[in-house]
């Protein structure tokens, strides 16, 4: 019989090992599943295309970074909330609203040139996301309504709102009446940091934020407050920490960052506001945050890993005619195994002989 014995102190070896273990288990399980379902395809070359090939090609590396940036930004915001036990599951909605708000600013000044336009758009994106998240914060602090449901329901509303905006006020007047905005003019497009690719300044911002968050959590009092509140809600109350302030702070930060990511997507790789803005970054970022164990620097890596599976997964789709759902299966499995292996940090697995 297998038993879990609590360790005296967390195993440091396991903190580093468990993600690798999880990845290994995922690859092995996926290998067996695919081998049994995909009878006429060389599964090992599928894995190569998925995990390795993108890293050998500078174009795909650049695309990986393009996809990783929004994941990093959103996950950073979410991780702060998660530590505090505030579950912003609807970051996707805040991302959309932020994208709309920032884009609206850019479109409003479509015939104006100026270096100040992009920062203004970014601020609008942050404020948009913050505003949207504040609805959930208000409902939670005033009426104890669960933020998971509120943010989730609001996500659907946000996507519909995007559609309404693109049919109406934000639609390109000379665009044959298709539900898309004008293509952003040069002052409204994010500067590219890697010439010839789509890698934009958002990546630098993401990396910067992760260091800021890291220092913030380590040093600042409220960071510690958040740490405690997350693991044991009762403990935080007893110690006199303000629950309400924590909720507001967590939701505003995660909402603001999600909104910023939305603007970055519209003003970066997309270059316009379209119905395709929502790409589930808000949900994938939750996985990214967990895979990094909510650690700001870890998020840089987990976001890159997940981005790799997206880029690799697309190539698998093109080369082997396999559906894109392959990526989702892998991500789901990765998270399962990661959560499972995490237990090894706190507990030791021991085999007991049952005594008769």
């Amino acid at each position: 019989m297998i038993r879990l014995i609590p360790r005296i102190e967390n195993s440091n070896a396991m903190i580093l090992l468990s993600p690798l273990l999880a990845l290994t288990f995922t690859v092995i399980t996926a290998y067996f599943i695919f081998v049994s379902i995909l009878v006429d395809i060389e599964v090992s070359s599928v894995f190569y295309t998925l995990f390795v090939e993108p890293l050998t090609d500078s174009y795909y590396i650049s695309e990986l970074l393009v996809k990783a940036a929004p994941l990093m930004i959103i996950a950073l915001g979410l991780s702060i909330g998660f530590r505090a036990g505030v579950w912003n599951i609807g970051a996707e909605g805040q991302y959309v609203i932020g994208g709309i708000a920032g884009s609206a600013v850019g479109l409003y000044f479509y015939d104006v040139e100026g270096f100040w336009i992009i920062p203004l758009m970014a601020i609008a994106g942050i404020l948009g996301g913050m505003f949207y998240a504040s609805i959930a914060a208000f409902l939670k602090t005033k009426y104890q309504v669960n933020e998971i449901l509120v943010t989730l329901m609001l996500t659907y509303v946000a996507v519909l709102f995007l559609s309404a905006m693109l049919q109406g006020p934000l639609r390109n007047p000379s665009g044959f009446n298709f539900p898309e905005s004008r293509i952003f003019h040069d002052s409204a497009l994010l500067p590219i940091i890697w010439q010839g690719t789509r890698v934009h300044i958002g990546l630098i911002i993401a990396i910067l934020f992760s260091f800021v968050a890291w220092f913030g959590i380590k040093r600042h009092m409220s960071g510690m407050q958040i740490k405690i509140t997350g693991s044991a809600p009762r403990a935080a109350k007893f110690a006199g920490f303000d629950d309400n302030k924590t909720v507001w702070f967590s939701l505003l930060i995660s909402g603001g960052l999600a909104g910023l990511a939305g603007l970055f997507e519209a003003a970066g790789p997309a270059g316009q506001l379209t119905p395709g803005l929502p790409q589930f970054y808000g949900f994938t970022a939750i996985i990214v945050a967990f895979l990094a164990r909510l650690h700001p620097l870890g998020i840089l890596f987990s976001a890159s890993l997940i981005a790799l599976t997206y880029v690799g997964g697309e190539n698998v789709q093109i080369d082997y005619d396999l559906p894109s759902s392959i990526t989702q299966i892998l991500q789901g499995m990765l998270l399962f195994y990661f959560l499972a292996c995490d237990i090894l940090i706190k507990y030791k697995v021991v085999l007991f002989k049952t005594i008769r």
Partner: protein
Amino acid sequence: MNESLLIDIIIGISIASVPLIFAAIGELVVERSGVLNLGVEGMMIVGALLGFVVQFHTGSPFVAVLAALLGGMAIASIFAFLTQFLLTNQVATGLALTLFGLGFSAFVGRGYTEETIQLITSIHIPMLSDIPIIGPMLFSYNPLVYLAFFMVYLVWWFLFKTKQGLILRSIGDNHDAAHAIGHNVIRYRVMAILFGGAMAGIGGAFLSLVQVPIWGEDMTAGRGWIALGLVVFSSWQPFRVILGAIIFGGITILQLHAQGFDIRISAQYLSMLPYLATIIILVSLRMRAKNKTNRTMPNCLGRIFHSTT
């Protein structure tokens, strides 16, 4: 608006509410035991897929529904194992379950997008089905519809009229005390989670076996998430799940009809109604429930139970 249109609308609403009722009543039991399973959408879509595939291959609706039920339970068991034995974070595990379920069903289902199946047909009760108005409205549905309402009653009876139900509820409210008394917290929770999976599976199968005989990725279209909202809306009281499902299913259907009536609000804003309504109802319930203790959520909802053996 004539009478037969009204009947059609009522029938449409009843049918739209069924998958929600199944999924929500299952999750209600899970949450009553103190566990939050966000993987409902994943379990539903797996049920939809299995129901479709098995029906396609066997032509037997009974076997198909059974397969969906077992499939829902099977992937729920992953969640149960992780959260109850490996003590993983419930929110993360539930999300992983949804992701995995969506990916898995899309993957397996890709070979079936061109196929159609025989839908489950409505029953015809001699005499009762033929009563004008009441007949089609109450007595002419397919068996799963009646099953859904029956399950609600069954869950109510279990939770409030049986000893095991009482124990389950006490576990949801205070798992440490229940454990101290000697109840097997883990066992009850695992059973609840499996039940939730079974119900979500049937709910999903309803979509692919009754509504439209085609398989499509994401055909659950967010109903699993709505079901989670319905559980809260119902204040964890079984019969209220029906009310919530009807309101939600109703608004979804009415929005389409409203367009036909040419109500002058654009379709996107009409489509927002079900989601906004859920939030509004949640808030109004909270505003009224401040003093009623039996209307609050199970105290231990979402908290990890650490047995101290």
